[in-house]
């Protein structure tokens, strides 16, 4: 097991119950099994002026997921032709110089890193979009971003445009679809239901246009577009990974804010205004961030969709929180996509299946399993 984050020595971890003294005397609310206090079972991370409550359970889950992710990456670097023993993989990664450097560091590592980054971005996008849509089934393809990116990519792939233009075109297409959805949904302050309905409408319209383009294209171009639409990591590596990493890095300050702002997204608008929030501005900010992440990652790896749908919901149930936890969703998304890509490479080797097929094959049953296990709760 790995520790989730390197913890600075001066950071004080303290149970809130010790700090929150009841203002009046007598047998007061501190009898809740000695934990929680007003913080509802959370602990408090304090560093200088920063004070962030967190759940130990979330920390443990994040740690386990990170450990599993690193393990999955090592396995992914190890399996294949030729097989490289995990020990050799680690030696090669540490720069010790092994005969497998080419295979491990140049061929397999870029793709594994890409899978992890893309999965994390999908997890983040799904968390944000589901929270704004207040719907556990919302994801980039439900609100049209995937189809917008897909249409632009299909046009680029079938019109003989240069290969380097496909990703930028897809990014613009995804964002254009999102702008359309926002414009349609904005009249009622991007309220959850209207947001989803506008998204579904835009998704269907773009989907139809994709079919038109595919049917009028040369068969070979249509096939390439089809592969793009399913989503695959084959033949991709550092360049795509760098784009996604760059996007996430740019979005990082926004994501830090978003992790906090998501807290208010489960409240209705009147209640939110009552406690001093601006729900509409907040929704647009959160949805916009999610859409940017979704469009950026879809542009690079195609429509590997199931990750964004599954990761937030499964992470939420693992953490037992009332909303999807973003960090855990990102780690779970990364793990899911690394495993899906590995399975796609190896299951029917030498035939490679696109990762997009495998994410659905792995994620679908797992989501069903999780839904069945958490019976009796309203969802």
């Amino acid at each position, binding site marked *: 097991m790995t520790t989730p984050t390197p913890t600075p020595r001066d950071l004080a971890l303290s149970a809130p119950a010790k700090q929150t003294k009841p203002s009046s005397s007598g047998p007061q609310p501190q009898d809740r099994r000695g934990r929680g206090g007003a*913080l509802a079972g959370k602990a408090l991370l304090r560093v200088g002026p920063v*004070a962030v409550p967190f759940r130990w359970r979330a920390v443990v889950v994040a740690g386990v997921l990170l450990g599993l992710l690193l393990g999955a990456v090592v396995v992914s670097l190890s399996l294949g032709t030729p097989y490289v023993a995990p020990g050799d993989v680690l030696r090669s990664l540490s720069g010790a110089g092994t005969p497998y450097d080419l295979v491990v560091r140049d061929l397999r590592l870029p793709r594994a890193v890409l899978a992890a980054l893309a999965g994390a971005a999908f997890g983040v996008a799904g968390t944000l979009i589901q929270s704004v849509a207040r719907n556990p089934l919302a994801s980039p393809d439900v609100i049209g971003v995937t189809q917008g990116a897909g249409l632009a990519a299909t046009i680029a792939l079938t019109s003989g445009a240069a290969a380097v233009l496909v990703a930028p075109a897809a990014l613009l297409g995804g964002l254009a679809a999102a702008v359309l959805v926002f414009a349609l949904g904005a009249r009622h302050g991007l309220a959850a239901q209207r947001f989803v309905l506008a998204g579904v409408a835009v998704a269907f319209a773009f989907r139809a246009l994709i079919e038109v383009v595919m049917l009028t294209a040369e068969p070979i171009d249509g096939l390439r577009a089809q592969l793009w639409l399913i989503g695959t990591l084959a033949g991709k590596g550092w360049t795509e990974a760098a784009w996604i990493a760059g996007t996430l890095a740019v979005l990082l300050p926004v994501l830090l804010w978003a992790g906090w702002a998501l807290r208010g997204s489960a409240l209705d608008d009147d*209640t939110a205004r009552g*406690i001093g929030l601006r729900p509409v501005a907040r929704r647009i900010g959160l949805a916009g961030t999610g859409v940017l992440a979704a469009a950026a990652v879809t542009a690079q790896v195609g429509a590997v969709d199931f990750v964004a749908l599954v990761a937030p919901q499964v992470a939420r149930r693992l953490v037992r929180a009332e909303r999807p936890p973003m960090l855990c969703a990102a780690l779970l998304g990364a793990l899911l996509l690394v495993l899906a890509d590995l399975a796609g490479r190896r299951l029917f080797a030498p035939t490679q299946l696109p990762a997009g097929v495998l994410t659905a094959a792995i994620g679908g049953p797992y989501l069903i399993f999780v839904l069945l296990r958490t019976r009796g709760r309203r969802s």
Partner: protein
Amino acid sequence: MTALLSTRDLVVGYEGRTVLDGLELDLPADAFTVIVGPNACGKSTLLRTMARLLTPRRGAVLLDGTQIRDLPTRDVARRLGVLPQSPLVPEGITVADLVGRGRQPYQRWWRQWSTEDGRAVDEAMRLADVTALADRPVDTLSGGQRQRVWIAMTLAQDTDALLLDEPTTFLDLAHQVEVLDLLHRLRAERGRTVVAVLHDLNQAARYADHLVAMRDGAVVAVGPPREILTADLVRDVFGLDCVVVPCPVTGAPLVVPARTQTPAVPPVPAGTSAASTRTPAVPAARTQTSAAPAGTSAPAGAPVGDA
């Protein structure tokens, strides 16, 4: 008494329909104000506009003399707590967590919790008597408990004033009384200003220090219930014939609808009650068609407006 919330020439409407037209009202500080009126008279609209949940077409809402729309929403949230009519409970959220949301106006994304937050949340849960439920998910609670949790959330906001839109509507009678008693305690013991929209005239008369009666988007009468709540007012506002008698428990005006279409209940001879075994041992109140009941003293502890 000083006005905490005032409206000046307030015009509010929804898509073409004007609900409030030039409404002028001053709500006193340190009082429990209840707004009553028939359905669609604009009482919720008024409350929601004062809570800045609705934007007026014209006119202004003043909070301590300052136009509320000129104040940052975070600052308003530190002075004015708002409980909407049927707030959505986030799935799976625990009581302590939800009450903690009331601290939002004091928090920033880098400082999401302080000792003061903990103190305020504990205090709010104790006041609303939900401390024992702290770790329970809110969606597993009864309606009355849930409403107390929401009130605790607004209490954690640590505001001088509290606006509540029909806080008793979906509760059974015992829970209605429970919630109203809590609001009364907040006013009496904590000096909070409470403003609520209520449906039940008799509860309004019993708990309010200050009654606002509305009809068709206009204020018909304002004042202490014992002074203004008469059969004439009820006929005027609700279009209902009634008699007003002193409440046998508190002495507050009690509105009893006059005979309408309902069949008469056979008169029960005193002492030989067969159908009703729980007839209170109270001398038959003299029916008065208008005048306020005078001289009926309230038992100790009953919520009666202290002048």
